[in-house]
């Protein structure tokens, strides 16, 4: 089991690195779906074969929503957009990769300082959780396209989910459902807003969202 878990965690980490170099919008949506599916399976692996019905239900719902429904929303939102890639300079890609490696080193270091007794998943999961959160924040801060900001937010959420599982934050069933429902509605509304941004402006660049500003007099 641990072996499989490690492989899954490494794939999640690999996808994080991919997000730093990708520029095709569609590829982002595909990969965030795959990452979501992997993240959704983790609680089952963490339970070590002692999963009960509710856990299966949560994992199933989580996989369906993260792997199918979110990519579907996002794909619908970007349908018919001519501009299909966000171009960035090679230097910027290089810098963000470098930042990614540094952040990875930091998250390995950080995970060692956490209390590690009775962790359900190997301690690698803590690092992967932190790393995924950090990459989500980097995407949110550096990308200009509305769609990529949502991908960044989803990445952040996936990271928090991994962290939660590896710290054994087992919430009551209703709390889990509530969190999933909140995320679902949030992404739904973000999808609608992306669609409206695209209709109202030429493309989805959030740089254009700059009418509202204040200056210190």
């Amino acid at each position, binding site marked *: 089991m641990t072996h499989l878990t490690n492989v899954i965690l490494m794939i999640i980490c690999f996808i994080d690195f991919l997000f730093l170099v990708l520029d095709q919008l569609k590829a982002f949506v595909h990969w965030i779906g795959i990452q979501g599916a992997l993240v959704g399976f983790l609680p089952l692996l963490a339970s070590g074969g002692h999963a009960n019905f509710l856990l299966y239900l949560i994992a199933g719902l989580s996989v369906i929503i993260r792997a199918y429904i979110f990519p579907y929303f996002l794909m619908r939102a970007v349908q018919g957009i001519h501009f299909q890639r966000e171009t960035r300079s090679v230097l910027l890609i290089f810098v963000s990769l470098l930042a990614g490696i540094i952040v990875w080193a930091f998250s390995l270091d950080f995970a060692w300082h956490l209390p590690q007794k009775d962790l359900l998943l190997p301690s690698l999961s803590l690092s992967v959780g932190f790393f995924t*959160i950090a990459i989500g*924040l980097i995407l949110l801060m550096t990308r200009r396209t509305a769609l990529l*900001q949502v991908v960044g937010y989803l990445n952040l959420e996936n990271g928090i989910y991994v*962290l939660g599982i590896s710290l*054994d934050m087992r919430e009551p069933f209703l709390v889990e459902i509530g969190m999933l429902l909140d995320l679902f509605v949030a992404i739904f509304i973000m999808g609608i*807003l992306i669609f*409206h941004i695209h209709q109202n402006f030429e493309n989805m660049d959030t740089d254009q969202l700059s009418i509202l500003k204040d200056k210190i007099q």
Partner: protein
Amino acid sequence: MICWILWIPCVAGILSFGIRSNKIGRWILLTATIAHMLITLMFWIHKPQPAWHGALKLDSLGLLFLTVLSFLFLNVSLYTIQYLKNEPHELHPDFQNPYQFFKNTPESLFIGCLLFFLASMTLVTLAHDLNVLWIAVETTTISSAPLVYFHRHQRSLEATWKYLILCSVGIALALLGNFFIGIAAVVHGKLMASLSLGSLLSKAKILKKAWLRIAFIFFLVGYGTKMGLAPMHAWLPDAHSEAPSMISALLSGTLLNCSFLALLRIFVICEAAGVGIFAQKLFLIFGLISMGVAALFILGQKDYKRLLAYSSVEHMGILAFGIGVGSSAFFAVLFHVVCHSLTKAALFLIAGNILTVYHSKMILRVNGLAKRMPYSGILWIIGFLAITGMPPFGTFFSEFWILKAAVDHHQMIGVMLFLLFLSMIFIGMAWTFLNMFQGEVFETAHQERRWTYFPSAILLITVLILGLYLPMPLSQELQWAAHWLRSY
């Protein structure tokens, strides 16, 4: 009983999603808010039993915030119903950019979201479990985003996007705070079963302080974003200026309070665990930064709705400052929550009236309120006096008591900065409000309808009465709530 107050707005919200008739939808809104108010009043007589295994519980602090929420919501929904009646349903031009046409969000959707917004904020006031609290705060963001986007033009789209993304990320960070509290509560290698307030407080002495400090920072950044503390306030002026006025009133008067309540709950845990001083220092710093930022942006502000929004940042700063000052200010802070909410909501509603008559949010385009809109004009000036803390309004006493507590605790630098920022804000606001009030007008006086100024008048009169006479039950609840905050 405690669940009823949640289910009623939820069921009403679902109903109004399904009903296409605008008239019935408005009736549903009114009925649900009146029912909400009645149940809240019943809670004053008899506190309800906890529910959901103690995750929902109404204490004095919750009751106080719930009452402000309910009272404000009732007044705002009276305004909303008439406002919606007068909104065009077809494509209409944007008055700031006449070449652009837009449509409003369908009314059924708007009212449904409004009711869910009410339900989620009610849940915040009742939640006694950090996970439930987190879900409730997150739900307030989601349910209010469509409300901000009521007028579907580019500016409100921008505001909604910023609001949704910034607050969602903020709240996600607050979830990390929950995890760190979980780690802080690891006892003999075992995590605690639940993050209920009761169990955390009873075991507060064995919480690990280092982790609790990290958790508090995450909470302060996360919920602080939602509360509008600078420098995480970037969404606030945009959302407040582009949302329809009654939504701005609700955001300022109730939503910011909810996040503040969440922070207070966390603060009590910190205090009980012995890291209260650390938390208070952070509150003090963020409070002063917020007031300073607000002062800088209020001076020379060109847009009166943004001015009110920055004033909210200022008042959130005052609340944080008050908590940071020390336990003798807690009573004043809670009193300030009540007074600020009512005043700010009233001002936003009047700003909405001014906007519909003058068709501009620019301060320089609005003058002669006294002659053109006599009722709203007078209320605008009264609101100005109340929000800047002039006697005999309630805000004067709350700000004065906070200041007195700061002097008592020898926070001299804090006191000086506090006074400096307040006077800068007073100058900025006085210039704006008086300019708008005075001046010659060539148009005839606008026929103001009663519903446009009645709710604001009620709110402002309440603030005035609270300044002159604090009713016994209210002062008792305030005392108890303040006592709860310092009893650990």
